[in-house]
């Protein structure tokens, strides 16, 4: 009899090509996603060694990080450097026969949005990309993680990676989420609890009734921010929600291949009695809308609570890091954030730019106005999402409320394309990182859900969406 195995162990084992004693495993990669920022040096290295791309048909590229999101007639790449980087990706894809969803393509979008929506992302796969938010794809029961540019080169050349087997961390979320509380609040609460290094060396598997009840887009939001807890990958076992989402998608298996795939996928969930290295639990019913106040995603609180005070940190470096964050954010320790002024609201990013996220934001903005002096940007994750949102009139809801409706891309999450905060501005953002300057040099970020972001847009203040008039 085989030992009871976790989802992670099953996917890992299936992809080990070779494993020598005292050496990392050689792991086969099923799907390699590529974007403009972390690939040029890898392609250059490949060329310099006289190598080629081993499996171009398992490699998919898009342009997302530095692409403009202004309406089509204004499309202009920010500078020559970005233009050159985009052109380099185009040349490399052409040279090696890699499918590219370039700027202007009907499927262009954020790499972690288009992978799932085009059906490339499937249960049981190994998926990598030179981007830490590759963890997103784990929502389908794939083992998906971010890699550096040297590793991008390794995968291009060999379709393999050297990997040390990580440990497993079960995050069990049971119970029912209250009104106004979303997947984003679940993951922000987890990171506040275990810290930005809490998952280091681990792959997270999210389990429990609250996770089971989430749709695929909400599951992607949760897995997306596993990296903000320090875990390279987050996984959720596939179930009927997963199969329903995938069925009929462009690159999903069809006919007999679908039936065969389904049989394989159904064997993936963690066996009863399988052991994780660690388990952390969250009570869904006790969660409130979350917001971050500091300069890493672990510095988060329920929106109704006051911020911590310096004397609550016993460790000297932790205290000085907290004080440094408070100075950067220009916030007063011990005071609640509710009512704090907001200059910009950003709804978008690989965390929260899917149709259901836009619907949440629209549910708040419908019939309301963006407050005077507030700039609100809504940036869909892909051209496909943009079309779907427009088909149900969400674009009208946003523009009538006074928000900007943009083209697809990473936009103000990483501020490489010109969409950025000015020094000192405060933003409520549905993205994933509140690091100093992440959304523009000197900008200050509060991370929150699309509901909380939209509520802040309406009032111009940090607002508990549950109390919005």
């Amino acid at each position, binding site marked *: 009899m085989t030992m009871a195995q976790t989802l992670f162990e099953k996917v890992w084992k299936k992809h080990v090509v070779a494993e020598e004693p005292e050496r990392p495993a050689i792991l086969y990669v099923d799907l390699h996603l590529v974007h403009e920022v*972390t690939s040029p040096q890898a392609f250059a290295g490949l060329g310099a060694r006289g190598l080629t791309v081993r499996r171009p048909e398992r490699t998919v590229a898009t342009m997302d990080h530095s692409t403009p999101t202004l309406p089509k007639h204004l499309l202009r790449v920010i500078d020559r450097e970005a233009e050159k*980087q985009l052109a380099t990706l185009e040349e490399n894809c052409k040279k090696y026969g890699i499918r590219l969803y370039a700027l202007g393509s009907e499927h262009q979008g954020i790499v972690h949005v288009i992978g799932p929506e085009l059906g490339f992302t499937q249960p049981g796969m190994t998926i990598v990309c030179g981007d*830490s938010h590759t963890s997103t794809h784990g929502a389908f029961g794939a083992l998906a993680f971010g890699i*550096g540019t*040297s590793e991008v080169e390794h995968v291009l050349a060999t*379709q393999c990676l050297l990997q040390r087997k990580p440990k497993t961390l079960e995050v069990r979320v049971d119970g029912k989420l209250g009104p106004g509380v979303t997947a984003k609040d679940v993951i922000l609460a987890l990171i506040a609890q275990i810290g*930005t*290094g809490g998952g280091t060396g681990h792959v997270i598997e999210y389990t429990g009734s609250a996770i089971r009840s989430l749709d695929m887009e909400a599951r992607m939001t949760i897995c997306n921010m596993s990296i903000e807890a320090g875990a390279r990958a987050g996984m959720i076992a596939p179930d009927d929600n997963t199969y329903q989402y995938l069925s009929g998608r462009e690159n999903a298996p069809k006919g007999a291949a679908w039936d065969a795939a389904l049989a394989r996928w159904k064997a993936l969930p963690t066996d009863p009695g399988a052991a994780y290295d660690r388990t952390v639990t969250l009570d869904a019913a006790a969660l409130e809308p979350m917001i971050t106040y500091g300069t890493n995603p672990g510095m988060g609180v329920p929106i109704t609570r006051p911020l911590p005070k310096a004397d609550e940190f016993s460790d000297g470096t932790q205290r000085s890091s907290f004080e440094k964050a408070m100075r950067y954010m220009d916030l007063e320790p011990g005071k609640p954030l509710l009512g704090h002024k907001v200059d910009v609201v950003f709804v978008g990013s690989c965390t929260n730019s899917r149709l259901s996220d836009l619907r949440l934001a629209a549910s708040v903005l419908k019939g309301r106005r963006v407050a005077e002096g507030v700039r609100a940007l809504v940036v869909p994750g892909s051209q496909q999402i943009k079309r779907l949102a427009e088909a149900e009139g969400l674009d009208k809801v946003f523009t009538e409320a006074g928000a900007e409706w943009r083209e697809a891309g990473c936009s103000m999450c990483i501020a490489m394309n010109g969409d950025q905060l000015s020094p000192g501005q405060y933003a409520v953002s549905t993205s994933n990182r509140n690091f100093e300057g992440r959304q523009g040099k000197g900008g200050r970020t509060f991370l929150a859900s699309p509901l909380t972001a939209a509520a802040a847009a309406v009032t111009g203040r940090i607002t508990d969406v549950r109390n919005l008039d």
Partner: protein
Amino acid sequence: MAEFTKITSHVVPLIVDNVDTDQIIPARFLKVIDKQGLGKLLFNDWRYLADGSPKPDFILNTPPVQGAQVLLAGDNFGCGSSREHAPWALVGWGIRAVISTSFADIFSGNSLKNGLLPVTVDAATHSRLVAAVAADQKAQVTVDLEAKTLTLPDGSKTTFPIDSFSRHCLLNGIDELGYIQSFDDKIRAYEASNP
């Protein structure tokens, strides 16, 4: 890849927890298509004033740390994005080893592929080193990869963990890609049975 055996150097102290890769090199500088010349952008937004002149009080701009090859960092150094530009910038400035109580996974892996050694020490050793460097900015440490030891300024030695494969690659300047390629027959066999 540059090989790494043993370095003796004074130390750049940057004792802040959770230093993320956006601080090590901000995203707006990631539009490059090569790896060179990123040392001048290391810690850019902490290092320069709005007019581009160096902030006099930022550690990298102070005379004592010039020429140092070792960075002493806070916990969870290198968290955030997968950008390999972070180790490229550190190495570009001249750093060859970073000492901390812990490192983010992707940063750690990226560093090892660029001849930059992450040296993990326990909290007590870290505190002693912080105190020693605060007392004497020219205090020297020795990182010996062959022996897996860190020698503190007072002469005491502590060992640090590193897996044997990474150590072997760093000591000999071996590139991982060549190692993976040596398994080509196994990769082919895997592909044949997993079409």
